[in-house]
């Protein structure tokens, strides 16, 4: 068990593709860090640099106070779980688990003990003699986890380990990974592009965008105070409503359309306002705006998902799209005009140019 430190880590691929642009993170011992971001943002590259599968162009990576830039992957004391599991197809499950231990010259009895123990934890004891091709996707996933666990490494590295599973299994394994990680207390770095997975697993989230860190923080802190429009639209589902506004004497107005009226407590110029779908209440027309925000929205689609429903609409007068969460079983007519209100504390302001959060 140990901490991991990334200091100004950069990766430039052949052809001057800068995949990671100076990333610094301090990962505490036993912490579960999730790297999240859209496809191509450099998550895998960063993880693979920690694993030693990719050279570090500049910067420094240390695992437990040891700089590992030049250390062989096998000597970094890490274990990795790959998206396609990467099991050795010609070896039995037992051998798959034992391989990394045998190569490190561990005595047979100790290997056997660890493999049996991991097999128990993951409930794969019945398949130890099978080849990977005779296993289902979920079972393969468990074997891949087992191969990491038996090593008892300083850190687990996961690269989208659940993305090849079906939805139900994914949720089940997600819970299991979290439980295991807490039980073993092993420092973990987990890569995913699924924001829900990121939110539920992480002690701390690292939101990446185009090779840069957009925000680091506890999932709920990131959710409550997204540092930029990028984070705001990436974390949370459905995404936060982002509406471009301009200011005039009476407060904020929508840039397109007529259906926005907002207070301007900070005296901002043009800015982008953000409101989460669950923070918009349907109210009577004519309710005072106060420091909050009032929207007039035309209903386009009503989407019941069971526990709740969503209204997809547009700001009156041909403005931006807006999503509103409502209680399930509530219905509204298509094309109805609704008045919505958000309290001041639930409205986020972002710089119109840079998209960075403006603290008010």
């Amino acid at each position, binding site marked *: 068990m140990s901490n991991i430190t990334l200091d100004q880590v950069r990766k430039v691929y052949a052809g001057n593709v800068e995949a990671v642009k100076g990333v610094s993170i301090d990962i505490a011992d036993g912490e579960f860090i999730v790297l999240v971001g859209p496809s191509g943002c450099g998550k895998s590259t960063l993880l693979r640099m920690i694993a030693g599968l990719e050279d570090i162009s500049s910067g420094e990576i240390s695992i437990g106070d040891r700089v590992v830039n030049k250390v062989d992957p096998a000597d970094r004391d*890490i274990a990795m779980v790959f998206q396609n599991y990467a099991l*050795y197809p010609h070896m039995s499950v037992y051998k798959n688990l034992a*391989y*990394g231990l045998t190569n490190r010259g561990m005595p047979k009895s100790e290997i056997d003990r660890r493999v049996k123990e991991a097999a128990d934890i993951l409930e794969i004891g019945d398949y130890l003699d099978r080849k990977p091709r005779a296993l289902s996707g979920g079972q393969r996933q468990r074997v891949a986890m087992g191969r990491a666990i038996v090593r008892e490494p300083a850190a687990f590295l996961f690269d989208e380990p659940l993305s090849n599973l079906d939805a139900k299994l994914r949720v089940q394994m997600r819970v299991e990974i979290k439980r295991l990680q807490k039980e073993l207390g092993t420092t973990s770095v987990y890569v995913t592009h699924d924001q829900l997975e990121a939110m539920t697993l992480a002690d701390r989230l690292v939101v990446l965008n185009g090779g840069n860190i957009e925000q680091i923080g506890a999932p709920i802190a990131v959710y409550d105070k997204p540092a930029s429009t990028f984070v705001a639209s990436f974390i949370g589902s459905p995404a936060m409503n982002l509406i471009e506004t301009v200011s005039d004497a009476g407060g904020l107005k929508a840039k397109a359309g007529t259906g926005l009226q907002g207070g301007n407590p900070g005296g901002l110029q043009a800015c982008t306002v953000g409101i989460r779908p669950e923070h918009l209440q349907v109210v009577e027309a004519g309710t005072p705006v106060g420091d909050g925000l009032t929207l007039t929205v035309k209903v386009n689609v009503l989407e019941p998902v069971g526990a709740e429903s969503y209204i997809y609409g547009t700001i009156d007068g041909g403005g931006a799209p807006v999503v509103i969460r409502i209680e399930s079983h509530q219905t509204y007519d298509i094309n109805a005009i609704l008045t919505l209100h958000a309290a001041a504390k639930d409205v986020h302001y972002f710089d119109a140019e840079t998209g960075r959060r403006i603290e008010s």
Partner: protein
Amino acid sequence: MRPHFPCDGRCAGSAPHICHLHVRGDTMKKVQFNSRWMPYAFLLPQLSIVAIFFLWPAAEAVRSSFYLEDPFGFSSTFVGFDNFTDTLTSSNYARVAQFTAVFTVLVTFFSLALALLLAVKADKVLRAGSTYKTLLMWVYAVAPPVAGLIGILLFDQHVGPLVDFAALFGWKMQIGVNYFDTSFAMVVISVWKQIPVNFIFFLSGLQGISRSVQEAANIDCRSGFRRFWTVTFPLLAPTGFFLLIINVTYAFFDTFGIIDVVLKTEPGNNPVTLVYKVYLDGFRGNDLGGSSAQSVLLMLFVFILTIIQFRLIERRVHYS
């Protein structure tokens, strides 16, 4: 395309399911021809080629292996298995068979081993995704036919650089005269010519191994040598086995041309392979019966090789 239809129940004890092995006759789609002779007409060209160039000569060889033909071809006498017993008991035949075996083992081993070595190096370059990639494609597009020619030139008694090179170390190579020198040249040229073919197969085999499996092995095992023998090599086994059969066949039969060029049709005391001996005895020695008996023995050998191949291929593991 394999058909996918309900299984006719031959899958032991299983519930109704879709299966591509046991298809119920009535559900299987049939291509309908206007005339029932049509399909045979389509097959005719292929069948006649097989008949004219393979079956007929084979039958002819089997027939004449039981006859003793006089050198001018005017008469032939039925001699039963005499040609076979003569062949199998002749010390010359044993010597040639022995050489063929050694030759085959050497050619197969070295052409596989060197090709594998080169393929592993090339695979590294390709995985690094560098610009050498296109260059490498070129090399193996031109390689096989040209390599054979170059190989023969290298050993040319008068202009061959390898002969000169050996001379530097005081080895006066006398190809076509000295038994060892001649066999050496034969083996080297045969290996040289076969390497590009093996290389292509090994390389595509290596490229077929998943990158993440290799990476998992990188994390699990520090020693590249050990990694090769415990992960890469076993995963290459299907390719390797296929190439083994191909190379044995090559060393046995396809080296005829190389041997002929090296010997310049003057065998003298030089080593020859069984196939070359068939030619020598039949066309230079005019012993058609003996030569036919030898080719029948070779046919048997190929037959056995084929059976082994099918047996093992059936058992062969397919990794997905």
